[in-house]
């Protein structure tokens, strides 16, 4: 039997055309100038570093033969295991449908992963969340505002009102005011809510602040923060693992795709928080019109917020304002706090960093 191939002597960077002859138990490697080698068949192995072409060697030396016709593998009685693993083309027919099916399962799974992330979030204890919080807080606590007794009383009064229907949960939430230069409020792991000073100055009435706090309280009650962390780890980890070695080569990090996928879940969480906040405000006897007016102001500042809702973590402000406005039952409840208390609370934390 004759099989053509290329011979590399392992000494010079030259490629020599050869004919291969199997003579009994020996493979004879024949160049145009004569015999380059005689390899006992029992000593021949497949060089696994060549995953694309079939390259064989003999236990005794550094020289190699690349065999152009893969049928030589069978003829030389070399283990077919390596060949089967490396020749992906042969397994295309089975693997492609499996691959597409798996991707579809992963995609659908991620899209509907709320069930999983919600379940995992319930398995994280408040103590574990507070440990995470301690890491986050380490550098930011220096910006915490110290409230005087009257300001603390006013804030407690507002919180007690918001927890009117579930006072047993009141202890799990802690509100802090921070002198950071951003108009925002957010929830951290461990049931902590941060109201940043510019937002405290921006809200016009206690009812507006109540709307913001009710929304954040719902994030605490529904464990959205820890669920977001789990979701982020799942999505980003999975897609980065998919891209693996090559993400640096691409002009975009695949984790961006994960973030976009995650935005849908963020919107779901925000909608849940709005639902809960609405119910909480009504149960507390606080008019949702305050929250609605706050959203109207947000909409006036950023009229585009509802147009690209698909690419946003929050629902559009106009839709939220309308929803809270329409839910108002026209009830007159006792005021949340006096005008003096409100002015005093807003004057807390004089310096904004």
């Amino acid at each position: 039997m004759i099989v053509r191939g290329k011979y590399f002597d392992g000494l010079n960077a030259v490629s020599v055309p050869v004919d291969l002859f199997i003579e009994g138990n020996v493979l004879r490697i024949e160049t145009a100038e004569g015999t380059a080698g005689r390899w006992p068949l029992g000593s021949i192995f497949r060089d696994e570093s060549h995953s694309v072409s079939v390259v064989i060697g003999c236990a005794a030396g550094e020289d190699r033969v690349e065999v152009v016709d893969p049928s030589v593998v069978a003829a030389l009685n070399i283990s077919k295991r390596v060949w089967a693993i490396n020749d992906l083309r042969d397994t295309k027919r089975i693997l492609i449908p499996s691959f597409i099916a798996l991707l579809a399962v992963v995609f659908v799974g991620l899209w509907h992963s709320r069930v999983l992330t919600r379940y995992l979030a319930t398995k994280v204890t408040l103590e574990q969340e507070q440990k995470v919080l301690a890491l986050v807080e380490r550098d930011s606590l220096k910006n915490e505002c110290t409230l005087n007794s009257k300001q603390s009383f006013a804030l407690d009064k507002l919180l007690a009102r918001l927890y009117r229907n579930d006072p047993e949960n009141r202890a799990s939430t802690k509100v802090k005011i921070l002198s950071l230069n951003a108009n925002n409020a957010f929830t951290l792991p461990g049931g902590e809510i941060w109201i940043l000073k510019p937002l405290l100055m921006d809200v016009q009435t206690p009812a507006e602040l109540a709307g913001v706090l009710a929304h954040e309280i719902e994030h605490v009650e529904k464990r959205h923060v820890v669920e977001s962390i789990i979701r982020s780890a799942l999505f980003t980890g999975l897609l980065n693992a998919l891209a693996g070695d090559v993400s640096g080569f691409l002009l975009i990090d695949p984790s961006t795709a994960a973030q976009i996928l995650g935005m849908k879940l963020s919107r779901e969480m925000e909608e849940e928080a709005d639902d809960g906040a609405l119910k909480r405000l009504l149960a507390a006897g606080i008019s949702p019109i305050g929250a609605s007016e706050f959203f109207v102001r947000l909409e006036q500042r950023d009229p585009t917020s509802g147009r690209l809702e698909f690419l946003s973590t929050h629902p559009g402000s106009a839709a939220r304002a309308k929803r809270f406005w329409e839910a108002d039952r026209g009830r007159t409840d006792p005021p949340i706090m006096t005008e003096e208390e409100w002015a005093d609370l807003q004057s807390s934390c004089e310096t904004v960093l």
Partner: protein
Amino acid sequence: MSEYQPDQTPQNEVVHDPYTTPPSSTATHNFEYSGDGVEMALLFLKNLLLTIVTIGLYRPWARTNLRRYVWGHVSFLGDRASYTGTGLELFKGWAKLIGLLIAAFLTIGLITRIVPFSAVLLPFVTPFAYIAVFALATYAGLRYRLSRTKWREIKFGVDKNKESTNEFFRLYFLGAFLSVVTFGIYYPWFKNSERTFLTNRSRLGNAYFSFNGISGEYAALCFKGIFLSFITLGFYLPWFIRSLVEFRLNHTKFQSSRFLFTLKGSDLLIYGICAYFGTVLSFGLATPWIYNWGLRLFVTNIKIEGAFDMAAVTASLSDGSSLAEQTVLEYDLDLGF
């Protein structure tokens, strides 16, 4: 049974029949890439599944699988390259780095506990430690990767001894320091010096590569590229990237030949746009195809022009035996270089 068919190549291209490839040449020769998107996707899938199942431990093996595939599909003069590294080696490199970091953190913790005042020095010492790790990863990582790369069964390599290691550390520390104090202005000079140092010590067997890029020219290219990218809101970026790669390759020589890079900026722009939208809209699932396309684009646009004599290239003694391979202590530290 598949059969070899040498007559399938189009008429107008330079053909390298594997049976008649001359050892020496003076023409212009292309690098070729034969990777397939579907195969790449299957490889990604295998790597992904095993990485998930092993909670990330498979990653060094996954990286090795990918390198073997990519290296094996890059060919020159009709002969494919090959990658001989193993996942275990990469894993050891990673473990070594983690061990070093743990030891460093423990030592710092212990010192600051015993001498609390020493914590004041940490912000000054830490950057030096980072620079040392990056320098080590750059030099040792390149040395590892090249020592595990073969073409026509001849290994590539990077020379390294105590003196050159010290020289590289000096170059790296000085470059990093001057880049910081000049707010990045010195960075192109630093990177060009680094490339000169590493390329001039890189070789195929006993034949050395050389790099003669002038730092001032490279810096001018960088400043022009950054300026134009800025004022065109990033539109010039593909041309900028292309010009940097072209500079690096055009100034790299092997024997009497030099490298060329023929990719157009417009091709890179199209690739960038498609890669961006392809990745985002497919939620990252098109990554293997995009990656494979990018590799093909880059590799097939690299050429070698001028005279070289492969018959004169012989295996270097220090790389020739498997014993030498076992005694190479450098591992790829896997910092993304």
